[in-house]
């Protein structure tokens, strides 16, 4: 059997702040096959970006990975030295961010950044060869007039073009895993669809393992094979997209689905669920969702539910399903 491009096991991540320890991610596990896409879905602040950053080894300085493993093509990246990690970054895993304008250094052209990435990751020394590879990367993401984009500074391009350019940079080195952290949230609706189509297209063509982060179940429905629903840093439900969307198990997932407008599931946004995320520095005992749950039971307030496989490949962390 092939090794999976990405396996995340029992990942727990804390942020150290002056106000206390933020338990941003707790015991999250999932895996992505070649050519498969897994969506991390949850409200803002639920720890999705933290997971994404951990996968590419780009967590902020005050974050600590407390436990767990992240296997990229079978290698645990958390055990690697700084140097070995640098090799894997960009080469085997890469990332695109929510804000394409802020992810490019304003003082350098797209071409300078893109060709530096290719130069250092693929060890291309020849100037002409570098330029050719860079231009073909820009062409691959459907950017018209790659020559012009190559010579442009970030402020001269629109958000949609920059997000395409970011995809070009991230995929120029042919990584096997791509983390897309809410890549369409800041774009117009029409552009959103284009970028999603582009990502789908590239995923199939390149056999990418795609970790797609979104707070929008509609977007998740459109792009994912598997869905991982996260609440306050814990996984609440994980399974094939059709299963999760048609027969959701966890009360939180059900509420999320109710919030998606039926008519146009593709562009639906999360409406709100009464209450708000718990304080990640002082988590209540028991189930983290209990304070907002409409089906709450006595046990939920004291005992944390374990994640159990209810149907093959479909898992949920809820006392309703544990025997």
């Amino acid at each position, binding site marked *: 059997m092939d090794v999976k491009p990405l396996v995340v096991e029992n990942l727990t991540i804390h942020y150290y702040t002056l106000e206390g320890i933020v338990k941003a991610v707790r015991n999250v596990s999932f895996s992505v096959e070649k050519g498969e896409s897994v969506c991390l879905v949850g409200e803002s602040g639920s720890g999705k970006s933290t997971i994404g950053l951990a996968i590419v080894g780009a967590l902020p300085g005050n974050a600590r990975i407390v436990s767990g493993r992240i296997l990229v093509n079978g290698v645990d990246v958390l055990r690697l030295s700084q140097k070995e990690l640098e090799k894997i970054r960009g080469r085997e895993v890469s990332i695109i961010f929510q804000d394409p304008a802020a992810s490019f250094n304003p*003082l350098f052209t797209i071409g300078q950044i893109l060709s530096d*990435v290719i130069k250092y990751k693929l060890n291309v020394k020849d100037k002409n060869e570098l330029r050719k590879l860079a231009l073909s990367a820009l062409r691959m993401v459907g950017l018209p007039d790659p020559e012009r984009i190559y010579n442009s*500074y970030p402020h001269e391009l629109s958000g949609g073009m920059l997000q395409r350019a970011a995809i070009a940079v991230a995929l120029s080195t042919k990584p096997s895993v791509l983390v897309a952290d809410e890549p369409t949230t800041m774009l117009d609706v029409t552009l959103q669809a284009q970028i999603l189509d582009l990502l789908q297209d590239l995923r199939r063509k390149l056999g990418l393992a795609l970790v797609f982060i979104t707070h929008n179940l509609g977007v998740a429905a459109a792009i994912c094979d598997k869905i991982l629903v996260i609440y306050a840093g814990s996984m609440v439900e994980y399974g094939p997209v059709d299963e999760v969307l048609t027969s959701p198990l966890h009360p939180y997932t059900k509420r999320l689905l109710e919030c998606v407008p039926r008519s146009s599931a593709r562009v639906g946004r999360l409406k709100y669920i009464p209450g708000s995320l718990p304080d990640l520095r002082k988590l209540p005992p028991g189930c983290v969702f209990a304070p907002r749950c409409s089906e709450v039971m006595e046990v939920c307030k004291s005992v944390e539910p374990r994640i159990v496989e209810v149907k093959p490949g479909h898992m949920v962390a809820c006392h309703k399903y544990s025997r």
Partner: protein
Amino acid sequence: MPISREYIIKRLILLVVVVFGVLIITFVITRVIPARPELLWAGAHPTPEQLEKARKELHLDEPIYVQLYYYLADFFRGNWGVSWRTRQPVLQDILSALPATLELVIVAFIIAIALGVPLGAIAALKRNTWIDHVIRIVSVLGASVPVFWLALILQLVLSSWLGILPGAKRVDELVVYETGFKPITGFILFDSLIEGNFEVFVNALHHIILPAIVLSFYPFGLSARMTRAVMTEVLSELYTRSALAWGLPRRLVIYKYALKNTLAPVIASLGLSFGYTIIGAFMVELIFVWPGIGLYAAMALLSYDYPAIMGCVIVVAIIYTVINMIVDVVHAIIDPRVKL
């Protein structure tokens, strides 16, 4: 380079406004306020004839606006009066003193940037380690130790006691005569280099080290502090983290990318510190007998040499404006978003 005609015109207008402003202020101080302005102009212990001549030259018998007209006209004709002390035309004195000061300030800034920026960057990279603390102490001291004290102490220790470095003058006259050195631009380091006169070059370099080091302390401390602050900010920006996440080597991200983001604000702050550095240069030149505009101005002040003092004030104002223009241009070269 994106520099528009509007920018150049705007800057030239600003330059004119500054020069006019300074001229008006000096006019008010030397002509309107004193009861007998000719006393300021005719030198110490003037004879009645000299006073009469000065009254004529200054058109003191005419209405004030006519005086102002002549005052401005004389300035723009390059007729800045004659120094009491040197008995030379002030403009000529200033032009021959200026290169010495500029050379000193340039060398001081080169030292300041060459040490301050890398140390500031290292401090930002090693935040909150002992290295950071040491650099912080050094740079805070650098920015806050009084120039005159530092100058006297270093002169005493390095020059008088240890005799390692010369403690006065730009160059040994003897070497100049023996080698037949003839300055072209007045920048001795530059002139001796293009003439291939290494003896003078080495001698001048030896002389400039001590005053330049003293003068570099403030801009050094400032650039180290600024670099640390800006670099810390830049390192936490998404574009830095994305460059790392896309797999660029840390070295490259820091020294090619982040450093460039850091330079523009650092250079801007150094430009603004220029005024302070000029004041420093006055003291350093006085203490090290450095024949620049600072020494000239200091001597002029001590001997109430009004024409010379006014000339110096105007020149410093012009330099200040020009420096700010250079800072703008450098900023535009570094940052493509800046359109001048």
